[in-house]
């Protein structure tokens, strides 16, 4: 277990280094003088020189990268030029709405997706199964901003049940304001969850031990809950972790649709304003979240499924 964890952590570290390097190189790919591009035509030569120096752009590349790494690790991401604020405090203000939206969206996807997957697996190849597959295919094909807008028209503007923009205050205020975007986000994730879970349930149901448990006279629901589901859920957790990048992307778009002041909006503004240090930091952070989540699900899987643990010793 320890050796496995160590090896898995090593792989992630290499990935994180790669992420930081590619993000670091970003600003160096900008044609011409990135600082001049960033500050716009009204900037003076002195200003450009001052900002370049403060970003360390006049130092040799390896030293710049070394400083960049050091800043990342210590959490000192530097100053945002457009917001004239430190990047870490900006991220601090914007983090919660984005996390809440991703969490809420995943929850919606699970609440709708898990029952659909179960029905689909148990009624495989029937018209119910086909119907569910078409439904999830449609939900996958919907542009996330479009389904957000449609939900907004119906439940916000026509029915007036939920707000269509902004970020509420207090727990219920936040829940209300995030419900429509979360449903849109959840719908986009639905197909992945239903397909993965459906196929792993079918896979487990075909295993011999399920027959053995049925032979003991257990009820269908007991066989399903206590044995099948438990063995089938792990691939779905892994797929969720793999798709967190997809969720982050969906959040970036949805925060624009519903005007939620989260990291997605921040990234969008940074891109629009060409605030390179901010883009750089947000990019590397988003990638790191994906890497770290994948790492933790792999380790979780080893904890849950005793067979994955190498070196599990015989009794």
């Amino acid at each position, binding site marked *: 277990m320890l050796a496995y964890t160590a090896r898995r952590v090593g792989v992630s570290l*290499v*990935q994180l280094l*790669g*992420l930081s*390097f*590619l*993000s670091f190189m*970003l600003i160096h*790919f*900008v*044609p011409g003088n990135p600082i001049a591009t960033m500050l716009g035509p009204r900037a003076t030569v002195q200003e450009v020189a001052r900002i370049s120096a403060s970003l360390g752009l006049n130092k040799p590349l390896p030293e710049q990268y070394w400083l960049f790494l050091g800043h990342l690790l210590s959490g000192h991401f530097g100053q945002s030029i457009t917001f004239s604020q430190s990047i870490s405090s900006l991220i601090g203000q914007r983090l919660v709405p984005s996390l809440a939206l991703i969490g809420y969206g995943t929850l919606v996807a699970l609440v709708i997706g898990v029952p659909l997957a179960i029905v689909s697996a148990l009624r*495989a190849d029937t018209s119910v199964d086909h119907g569910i*597959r078409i439904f999830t*295919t*449609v939900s*996958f*094909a*919907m*542009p*996330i*901003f*479009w*389904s957000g*807008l*449609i939900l*907004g*028209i119906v439940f916000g*503007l*026509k029915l007036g049940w939920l707000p269509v923009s902004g970020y509420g205050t207090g727990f219920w205020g936040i829940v209300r304001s995030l419900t429509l975007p979360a449903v849109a986000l959840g719908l986009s994730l639905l197909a992945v969850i239903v*397909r993965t879970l459906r*196929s792993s349930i*079918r896979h487990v149901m*075909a295993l011999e031990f399920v027959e053995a448990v049925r032979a003991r006279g257990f009820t269908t629901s007991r066989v399903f809950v206590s044995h099948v589901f438990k063995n089938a859920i792990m691939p779905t957790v892994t797929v969720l972790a793999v798709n*967190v*990048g*997809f969720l*982050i*992307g*969906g959040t*970036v*778009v949805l925060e*624009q649709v519903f005007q939620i002041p989260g990291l997605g909006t921040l*990234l*969008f503004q*940074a*891109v*629009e304003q*060409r605030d*390179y240090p901010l*883009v750089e930091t*947000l*990019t590397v952070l*988003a*990638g790191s979240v*994906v*890497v770290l989540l*994948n790492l933790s699900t792999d380790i979780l899987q080893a904890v849950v499924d005793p067979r994955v643990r190498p070196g599990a010793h015989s009794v």
Partner: protein
Amino acid sequence: MSDLAHLVTVPWRRLRALGSWEITTGIVVVAVLMIASLLAPLIAPYPPNQIDVLHSLQPPSWHHWMGTDFVGRDVWSRVLYGLRIDMLVVAVITYLGLAIGVIVGTVAGYVGGWFDAIVGRVADTVIAFPFIVLVLAVIAIVGPGLKGVAIGIIIAGWALYARLARSEMLAMREQPFLMSTKALGYSHVRAIFRHALPNLVRTSLVYSTVDVVVNMLVLAGMSYLGLGQQAPGADLGSIIASGQGYLLSAWWITTIPGAVLVLFGLGVSLIGDGITRGDLPQGAL
């Protein structure tokens, strides 16, 4: 040449052999959308950018059967032209990404060594970035517009194909038929391109049915955000965005182009589904 013909005819024959309703429906849907968009200059009743302020925000009618937008442009005409540009861009970026990925991955898997190690790490790193975030970062460098989006999607998209092709190549390297080409004294390049590549491409083509949908959604998303197609040109994402201010008074500007996108995604997904299901033994999916 015969190899190329093979690449096209074999999947097609298999598609027909599978004969599922999914594939048939999917092909019909995609073909209709493709033909409609190709024929846009002939079908479209109005020039896509023709402003007619007197007839702005008209609901669907005989004259404008998808209605008009806030400056009186015909939504149906704009959708046709928008679809045309979107389909073209998506086809180019998806299959350019596929070509780059397959070639790089195949070569990496074949030659191994440091080249393979670098390709593997870079691909893993690129895949770790959230797709849209990476596209946005590239747009920050290249600047907004279809060019920026296209470059961004290709940079983010090649990596999965490279990983796919690389692992298939590693498995295939051990197979007798490729080892025998070596024994016969074929050059490496020839061995790869004549024997291994067609097999690898087939896997990637199946995967590309998912990728086409995802890329279309990302492209539309970027245009919706105002980072893709720039005014006055229109694509589906930017048409949807233009209707956002009139959600209640002119629902058609937003809903109809989106529905066309859904139709496209559904058609492509059905084709992909049909192929995958036919490929795998029953019950495997």
